[in-house]
């Protein structure tokens, strides 16, 4: 199954992308995160404004997505995974605050013990036979998305002698233009490991780090069932002409 036939989009999906604020993102070369040292380009990036090649992008249809794809507790074997049950939800918006509908959000994570279902992960914590650790969904009309999962455990990794990853969920997000493509990680409010993490610290600005920390959301928690955390995602905005805006309102 590849993505659907292209479906018509409106003028919101067109227009030049706002430039990226490269000081807000992590730098490529961040020696505190050791693997970046040999994988960071050493030459300056070649900067130019977006073109059609970045302003257009792939579209996905609902029939590419299965009913349980956003339910990581059940989507592997149908038997429930072990761990703290949580709803992880939020909205995908652009820098103009507009919700972006029908875009693909994919996540992956360790199980409740901090172990990934991956041949390269040999951590002591056991695999959960009922947890694969991947999920996906399309955003709704207002850009909202929702996953049901277990809260991932923290885990140790070889970087410094005693480096631990805070609890986190990896997010891959599409916008409407290939130039908006983004991978990031969601952390959880109150986790003391966030401030110690070399990967978190690749980001230089405090406010940028805070934007990756999902607060507890008791309004969406379900009594006697699960807690909830809210993680909103902002993608690059687009410049819009007055004419296009008018067309939108008509």
């Amino acid at each position: 199954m590849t993505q659907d036939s292209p479906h018509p989009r409106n003028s919101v999906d067109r227009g030049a992308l706002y430039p990226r604020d490269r000081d807000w993102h992590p730098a490529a070369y961040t020696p505190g995160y050791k693997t970046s040292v040999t994988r960071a380009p050493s030459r300056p990036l070649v900067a130019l404004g977006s073109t059609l090649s970045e302003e257009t992008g792939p579209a996905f249809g609902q029939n590419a997505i299965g009913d349980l794809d956003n339910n990581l507790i059940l989507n592997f074997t149908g038997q429930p995974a072990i761990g703290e049950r949580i709803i992880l939800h939020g909205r995908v918006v652009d820098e103009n605050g507009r919700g972006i509908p029908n875009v693909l959000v994919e996540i992956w994570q360790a199980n409740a013990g901090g172990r990934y279902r991956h041949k390269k992960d040999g951590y002591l914590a056991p695999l959960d036979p009922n947890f694969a650790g991947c999920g996906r969904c399309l955003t709704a009309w207002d850009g909202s998305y929702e996953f049901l999962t277990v809260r991932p455990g923290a885990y140790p990794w070889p970087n410094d002698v005693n480096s631990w990853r805070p609890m986190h969920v990896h997010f891959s997000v599409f916008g409407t233009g290939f130039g908006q493509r983004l991978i990031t990680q969601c952390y959880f409010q109150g986790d003391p490991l966030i401030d110690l993490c070399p990967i978190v610290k690749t980001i230089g600005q405090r406010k940028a780090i805070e934007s990756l920390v999902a607060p507890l959301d008791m309004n969406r928690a379900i009594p006697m069932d699960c807690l909830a955390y809210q993680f909103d995602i902002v993608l690059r905005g687009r410049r819009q002409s007055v004419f296009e805006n008018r067309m939108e309102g008509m």
Partner: protein
Amino acid sequence: MGRLDDLKETPSQTAGPYVHIGLTPNKLGNAGVYPVDLGESPIRDGAQGEAVTITGTVRDGAGMILRDALIEIWQADADGIYPGNDPRGAADPNVTGWARIIADFDSGEWLLNTIKPGRVPYPDGRSMAPHISVWVVARGINLGLQTRIYFEDEDNSACPVLARIEQPERRETLIARQTGPGHYRFDIVLQGDGETVFFDI
């Protein structure tokens, strides 16, 4: 939250070593959740245009070939129209334009079967030489790297994007070398000698 136009793009974090769990679980061996991985091919049977096969690797600054790189590509159809939301109209219905490719877990080689895209206009009306947009993520890459594949047997001399690269020898890093009819080689070098040009675009 301040004014809406104060919103900042969500900062990137590395895809890490386990990106395949989320994006290509079947290729990793975690079958059972999704029937197939997304992005198997940017074309379907019947796509118009010249069939091309591109192979390559992703190499780091120490000369090591990455076995954990994940690449996505985005391209126009043979007439230079993008599928989906191109304001100029509808593309070839058999071109989806997008693929997700992984380096082989043992050799690090990646492979793309597609059709050669047409020329696409630059914002000022000049035309960009045929190219495929490339986005590379992996452990150790903090923000996905954007580059482009151009083709050795096309006229790349007037492409306004290539012209933005000041040193002519660096432009060569974006040009796939023809290794046979319809076959090209495009090795990505993250750092050091022959470092691929990456864009802030």
